[in-house]
């Protein structure tokens, strides 16, 4: 063999080794972490692991999987975990290189061990980005293949829950359905919102007035659905028949689930603008500009509204004391408090537990920051920092 061929072979091997090394370790996160808090237990679906931890002590109970298994890769995980009896249900999401985990996992609340795993029939299906919802009997799992699967964990067939029905849309389902009054309201990337009978999977009506994807979970109040779309409109639609009540144009795509409170709908857009809209008329009451996209749902506790932004900051507003100008704009400094120290992108909905605000972190070694809900000061982090090692005296 010629000398150059040997060199080329060695160089190729080194190149491939370097490329392989790039894929090792924890990959960059590609989907949005989701967190559920149930009593003292916090459940976090974050990148390639699902964690259970104590929200008061930040001590970890378990993680799934216990270690990365390259032969049987799982995750990334995203969406808010759901509790189904003593099983924690999470969905596998979409990875950075286009690969995806097309399973819904049922994990033991006690141990974190896999109890069952759902794979769409025929080994089809794609990513479960948004997590699932449940009415305690069935689990409704929206998939990237455009199907909403209703599965019954009480009926295990061939090691996985039986599919009760499948509802097919025209494109990816990257938002969670809303389950209310025996109906499911599912937005799809095919630009439509579907109302589906939760028992049978039959379509009741569809809303097709949006001109771009709908990835937000609708919110409902007094028979009206409220949701935003990528066509930069916020919609109010009658839940009974899908007729449009009003729509309000905003500056950018809306991917946040709206929060409804005291006659107002709160949501953000991809340009980082937070909106408060009158639920009756759709009129914008006030706006506030963060410095990057708002993806996470705003959260209200008492009279305080909490919003996290991709700009790495957490914002708190006193809803009883919103100081806006004549144009309805709230100045950047007119917040109750701001925490600008977390230094990581924030894309997931925080959870208020007592006087603590738990904020999932999108990337980095710290998975959750616990802040004082009244002041924004840091309280603790999950996982806890490693114990400081004593420096030997010289």
């Amino acid at each position, binding site marked *: 063999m010629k*000398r*150059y*061929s040997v*060199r*080329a072979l060695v*160089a*190729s091997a080194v*190149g*491939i080794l370097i*490329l392989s090394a790039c*894929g090792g370790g924890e990959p960059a*996160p*590609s*989907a*949005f972490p989701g967190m559920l808090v149930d009593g003292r237990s916090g459940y976090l679906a974050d990148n390639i692991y699902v964690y259970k931890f104590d929200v008061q002590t930040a001590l970890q109970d378990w993680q799934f999987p216990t270690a990365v298994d390259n032969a049987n890769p799982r995750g990334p995980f*995203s969406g808010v975990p759901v509790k189904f009896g003593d099983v924690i249900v999470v969905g596998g*999401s*979409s*990875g*950075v*290189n*286009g*690969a995806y985990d097309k399973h819904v996992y049922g994990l033991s609340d006690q141990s974190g061990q896999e109890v069952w795993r759902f794979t769409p029939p025929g080994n089809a299906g794609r990513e479960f*980005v948004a997590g699932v919802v449940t009415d305690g009997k069935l689990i409704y799992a929206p998939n990237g293949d455009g199907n909403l699967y209703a599965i019954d964990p009480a009926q295990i067939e061939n090691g996985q829950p039986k599919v009760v029905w499948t509802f097919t849309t025209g*494109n*990816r389902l*990257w938002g969670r359905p809303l389950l209310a009054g025996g109906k499911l309201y599912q937005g799809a*990337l095919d*630009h439509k919102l579907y109302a589906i009978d939760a028992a049978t999977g039959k379509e009741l009506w569809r809303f097709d007035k949006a*001109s*771009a*994807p709908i*990835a937000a979970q609708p919110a409902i109040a007094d028979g009206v659905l409220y949701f935003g779309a*990528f*066509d*930069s409109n916020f919609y109010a639609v009658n839940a009974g028949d899908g007729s449009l009540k009003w729509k309000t144009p905003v*500056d*950018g*795509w809306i*991917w946040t689930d709206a929060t409804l409170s005291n006659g107002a709908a709160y949501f953000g857009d*991809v*340009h980082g603008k937070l909106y408060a809209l009158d639920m009756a008329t759709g009129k914008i009451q006030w706006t506030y500009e963060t410095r*990057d*996209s708002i*993806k996470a749902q705003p959260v209200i506790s008492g009279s305080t509204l909490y919003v996290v932004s*991709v700009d790495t900051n957490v914002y708190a507003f006193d809803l009883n004391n919103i100081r806006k100008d004549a144009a309805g704009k709230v100045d950047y400094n007119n917040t109750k408090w701001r925490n600008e120290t977390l230094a990581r992108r924030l*894309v997931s909905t925080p959870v208020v537990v007592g006087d603590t605000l738990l904020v999932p972190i999108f990337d980095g070694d710290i998975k959750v920051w616990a802040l004082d809900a009244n002041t924004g000061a840091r309280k603790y982090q999950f996982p806890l920092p490693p114990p400081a090692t004593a420096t030997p005296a010289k």
Partner: protein
Amino acid sequence: MGNIFDILVVNPMTNVLLLIYDVLFHNYVLAIIVLTIIIRLATLPLTLKQQVSSLKMAAMQPQIKAIQEKYKNDPQKLSEEMRKVGFNPLGGCLPLLIQFPILIGLYNAILRTLAVTPISLLELGKHIYGFLPNLSSLVPVNSTFLGVLDLGQPDKLFIIPILVIATTYFSTKLTTPPSTDATSKQTNQMMSMMMPVMFGFFMLSAPAGLGVYWIVSNLIGIGQYYLMKPRLDLAKAEHAAAAAGNALPTSVSTPAKPKAKLPPPRSKVKPSSSARVAKPGSDNK
């Protein structure tokens, strides 16, 4: 810095790619092909300049080697002599440096518009121009090709990785200037084998859409090479002639072969500025 690159390069390309996709019947492969052609044509003068410069450097190699040998103990004189013969090792780099961000931008625009992950879809939303109506309605782009290939996923049939390897091999082989120096020759041969393997390996886990871009880009590169070949051959002949002519006044023992291989008589060679630059005694100081 990342933001500036986004604003100046990636964002315009992202929006143009979506516009082309809209015009071309929502066919994403066609959109990638058309945008790649537009960009390769726009950077054609730079490509040509870079290839001519590379050829010039390759033709001058024996002469340069001789000068380096003669003045190895006198760095100042060495640099003077090198300058005299028109040696500029960075001559071919500047056009390449300008092209590189454009290609990286196109790569990012494709990755962004494919929006295979939630985070990339969120990023896409931030960068779609609001003043261009209806672009948001194109999302998500139809990423299936011929009903078989999902451009947002790695190609499980390995057709794309194989085509990437083949086209990268031929493209590298054709566009690498011939070298008279044994070491450079070995390096070039090594590169022409290593690059395709590395890109092919990368494509095993990358979205197939990126592979389509890479294949199209390589094919255009190969096409450009054949279209520019007469001009490159002419430049090569001029540089070889100039290099051979240059060797005499320096009194350096130039290997006989390049001299014997002198291209067409000078009278037949159309004078060009690059040839004049390399000529000794000219104003190139």
